[in-house]
């Protein structure tokens, strides 16, 4: 009996050990990646990275000013598409949660969320590049927007469902129309959370490369024209990383550091905001 008990105990502790080890195993790449991005990126990051344009091969120095502005423009365009569509469809799926259309929209959102980003790039190439025979910032924004819509829609829906029913009922009892109740009472109550969700979604799409490869393409020059190809941090990192030039590799690491910093700051801020919100709701 005691041998059996011992065996059970040993198996159990081995299992606990395995689970703890897998956490450590997953944290190793995180630490290693962040370490390399920090150390290599900091070595190459300087003021001119933010203010100067890319230099031709062989000339040291230069920066990614055009790519940073490009990323801001394309991601901004994406949000412009995605935020209104996402929020309004989220309103529909939460207000008419039981309807067949709402389930279909929910299914579409989940499906869209799982579509590989490269496929979205191909799709947008077909509808926004091919007809005009022109790569453009708008096409890139459209591709990123399509990736962002499902995230915004599902976040909005979840947060709206968290708003107490009594608030909605109170507004309706005072004679408000449904639209009035949603836009003046329910939506404002959930707004901080929705904004947090949008910021997180924005951070995620800012790091996307594949949908931009053949929509907004790349541009060696400084451009803010929406109908022209535009550079972006991610595409620039990709094209620099796959060349053989030491100096461009350094630039790629600096770009990666900036990109990771943007994404991390956004997630940490969003997380802090959510926690404060939860505190407010409970208190």
């Amino acid at each position, binding site marked *: 009996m005691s041998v059996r008990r011992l065996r059970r105990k040993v198996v159990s502790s081995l299992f606990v050990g395995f689970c*703890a080890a*897998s*956490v450590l195993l*997953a944290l190793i790449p995180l630490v290693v990646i962040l370490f390399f991005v920090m150390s290599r990126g900091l070595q190459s990051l300087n003021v001119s990275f933010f203010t100067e344009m890319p230099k031709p091969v062989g000339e040291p120095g230069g920066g990614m000013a055009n790519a940073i502005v490009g990323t801001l423009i394309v991601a901004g365009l994406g949000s412009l598409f995605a935020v209104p569509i996402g929020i*309004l469809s989220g309103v529909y799926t939460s207000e008419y949660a039981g309807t067949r259309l709402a389930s279909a929209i929910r299914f579409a959102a989940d499906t869209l969320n799982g579509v*590989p980003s*490269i496929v979205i790039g191909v799709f947008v190439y077909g509808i926004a590049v091919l007809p005009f025979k022109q790569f453009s910032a708008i096409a890139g924004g459209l591709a990123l927007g399509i990736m962002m819509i499902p995230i915004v829609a599902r976040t909005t829906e979840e947060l709206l469902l968290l708003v107490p029913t009594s608030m909605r009922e109170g507004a309706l009892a005072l004679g408000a129309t*449904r639209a009035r109740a949603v836009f003046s009472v329910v939506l404002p109550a959930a707004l901080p959370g929705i904004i947090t969700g949008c910021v997180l979604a924005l951070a995620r799409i800012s790091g996307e490369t594949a949908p931009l490869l053949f929509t907004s*393409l790349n541009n060696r020059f400084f451009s803010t024209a929406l109908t022209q190809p535009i550079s972006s941090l991610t595409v620039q990192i990709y094209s620099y990383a796959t060349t053989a030039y030491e100096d461009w590799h350094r630039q790629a690491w600096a770009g990666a550091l900036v990109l990771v910093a943007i994404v991390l700051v956004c997630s940490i801020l969003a997380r802090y905001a959510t926690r404060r919100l939860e505190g407010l709701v409970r208190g």
Partner: protein
Amino acid sequence: MKKDLGFRIGTGVFGLLLILVVVGIGFELTRQSLLSIQKFGLNFWRTEIWDPVAGEFGAFPFIWGTLYSSILALLIAAPIAIGIAVFIAELCPARLKQPLVFLTELLAAIPSVVYGLWGIFVLVPTVRSLETSLPDSIRAWALFKGPPVGLGMLAAGLILAIMVIPFTASIAREVLKSVPIAQREAAYALGATRFEAISAALFYARTGIVGAVMLGFGRALGETMAVTMVIGNTPQARVSLFAPQYTMAAVIANEFSEAADELYLHALIEIGLVLFIITLIVNSLSRLLIWTMGHGARKAAAPAAEPQAAAA
């Protein structure tokens, strides 16, 4: 009520837009790949020769590479991800829970291209030195054949595994959360060890766990940048972990802007279409599994009374 109809339609239209985009993707990709579908038919997926210059397009190496790298990633990632989920949901002290969740989320937040950059300059050299350090007797096996270049299937599988782990772990954790506490308490009350109690919970949640792993698989299938940067981009179907190969997503990313003639472009878009269909099926199936699990738990149905779950 009439006033509400306008609101209902006004918001519903935007929801409809989402459905339209999904349908539109399927339609547009089919339309743009008709040339290739008509010319090659099913042979497209059986032929191993990919020679755009000669006008020969066979996509077998890409579907092989995509499946190989994703399954390899899954074999590495699934046990680790489930281990993490169990540790965070069941074992770790309450104080550690939030920080650990946050750290795994960070791993998921790092952009794909940064993984790729790290892959090229850190992971690939490491894999290369691992390959060269293997004794010749092992290198003779089919699984380890070929020159040790570093770029190849092994590097791709590893980087995919790292990227999929946080994703699968967080869904598996949610699934575990939906297992009733009473079930574990009953096990402990009967004198079960931690392993026995948790494996009962895992068994109870098996449908959802399988769903979580499959959802990770769906992610791996479509992952583009990081894989493109480390897999070596050579259109050949090989068993060897060390051989440079190609995936569906990678070939689109690499060759799309070079595709000069229409047939070439249509062939690439057909690859995109099939990738879209495969991920659609995998994702829908896994969501169905997770949903079944959540539904069953909510109804607090006895696990024995779910014959369809046992089949999965």
